[in-house]
């Protein structure tokens, strides 16, 4: 493992994003906080170590393309973009409000967002198009996509899972945020996903599994995928916990929908600050 990776800094970034997400959802009385908290550590590692980006030039031609397919978890994306300097942090206060651009599903009107998402099952096919474009134009930039587990119900994803190995898209990196809860139940009770690992490998993807909240593990497994020479698309199955970081929100379907009241916000912030 590279010594240059500053996990303390990544941990701090993740903490800030979690606080941003909490405050946004609290102010807007919005939903999907659990989904956002689930993805924070993955996003913090991806932006810190893998996604080539320039906040001063969001459309830099050589940037890596990052798509968040679980567009409902937008607060972690907007939080990350603010912490990284793509947007002014003060703008987060306008989240979900009239006339603002921070709508409650990821919007491409926001610098740093490649494509709007929100309807599930859209980003992976788009990512195949991006990856294919890079191949055709002989560009070295790469495409990263963050999928939820619930959206693996969508057939469009499986069309793309079939096609990507056929096209040998080894410049495509998917992370599945596998928190095992979807909008109205446990993923394996709604539509059984398991054996998920076997499904992906049998389709021809190169797969690694990780603890989606262990920064070193996320980094280590993604690093192996990024440095792999196999001409296959890559997928990281990240085992996560919905609502991660706030004890009373963890592994709970309720926090797919609820927004914290003032007292809950205080408790949550206190936990995150380690007080």
């Amino acid at each position: 493992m590279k010594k240059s990776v500053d996990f303390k800094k990544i941990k701090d970034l993740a903490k800030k994003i979690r606080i941003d997400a909490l405050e946004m959802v609290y102010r807007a009385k919005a939903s999907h906080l659990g989904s956002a908290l689930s993805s924070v550590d993955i996003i913090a590692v991806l932006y810190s170590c893998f996604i080539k980006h320039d906040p001063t030039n969001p459309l830099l031609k050589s940037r890596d393309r990052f798509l968040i397919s679980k567009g409902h978890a937008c607060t972690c994306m907007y939080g990350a973009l603010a912490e990284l300097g793509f947007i002014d942090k003060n703008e987060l206060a306008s989240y979900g409000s009239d006339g603002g651009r921070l709508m409650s599903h990821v919007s491409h009107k926001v610098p740093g967002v490649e494509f709007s998402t929100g309807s599930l099952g859209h980003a992976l096919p788009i990512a195949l198009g991006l990856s294919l474009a890079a191949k055709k134009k002989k560009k070295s930039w790469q495409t990263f996509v963050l999928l939820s587990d619930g959206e693996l119900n969508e057939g469009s994803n499986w069309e793309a899972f079939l096609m990507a190995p056929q096209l040998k898209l080894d410049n495509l990196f998917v992370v599945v945020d596998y928190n095992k809860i979807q909008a109205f139940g446990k993923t394996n009770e709604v539509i059984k996903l398991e054996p998920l690992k076997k499904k992906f490998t049998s389709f021809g993807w190169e797969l690694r599994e990780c603890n989606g909240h262990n920064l070193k593990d996320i980094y280590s497994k993604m690093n192996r995928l990024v440095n792999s020479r196999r001409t296959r698309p890559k997928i990281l199955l990240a085992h996560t916990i919905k609502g991660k970081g706030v004890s009373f929100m963890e592994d709970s379907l309720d926090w797919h929908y609820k927004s914290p009241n003032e007292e809950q916000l205080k408790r949550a912030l206190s936990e995150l600050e380690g007080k």
Partner: protein
Amino acid sequence: MRTKIIGKLLKNANKSNVFLMVGDLGYSVVEDFVAKYPERFLNAGIAEQNMTGMAAGLASEGFKVFTYSIGNFNTLRCLEQIRNDVCYHNLDVTIISTGGGFAYGSLGYSHHALQDIATLGSLPFMTLLLPADPVEAEFCSEFIFSNAGPKYLRLGRSKDEVVHLSKDKIAEICTYNQKQKTNYALVTVGAMLKEAVRVQDTLGAKTKINIYSCPVIGENFALNARKEFSGYKYVFTLEDHVVPQGFGSHMAKALELEETRVISFGLNHCSCYGCGNQDYLHKHNHLDAKSVSAGIAKIIGAKKGK
């Protein structure tokens, strides 16, 4: 018409960075393109949602992308990908569909494209291209290569005959015949121009009616339609498509502040059951020249009597 379009793709492939995707269709149509530009062709398989999402991704990186399939497959099956990924991002993707209306008649309603104008016509930045014959298809091809953004090209069958008498009058709204001084216009899209010519013959010389077709329904349509049609008392529209939100609705909207009455001939919601070729299904659904002529005569006659 398909040959014209593919010919145009081949001609423009290099300068316009054309990328052609097909949904496991295109036998005897796309082979020349594949042979010449294999690196910019992809059979995306029977997976139209993925094909359309990929098209959006490719277009966002500068390719001029075409998706090709039968009428309803690369339209209705993947409508949300067209709306969210292509249209809301205003990307240069042209959806080419064959079998518009009842063109694939006996294949059954699964292969009829009868709601495509309504659905795709409601999407942001979308231009509808509805050629009547190979001459209009040529005009639509020019339009495609002169304009970026989402476009829907609705073609008929492989052997559509030439209907227009001359290429000179082809425009976004074009007249078929020499314009006469009359209160009546019959305005068509796609394959119905052929039927409209027969309507004119059936009505006879005593009833003067001007025949039009509209190969392009885009941002200029309402303005052009007001200019061209507001002088008429009656504008009859004719389409091989359901009436609700179809071509007639575009016309009615364009003329809503005018005194012109717009009367639409098209299909009812449940008009697509049963087997038959295109002509049979037109007749069965009262879109044949005889039925449309009778409908027009009844309205004109009733009005004259008052």
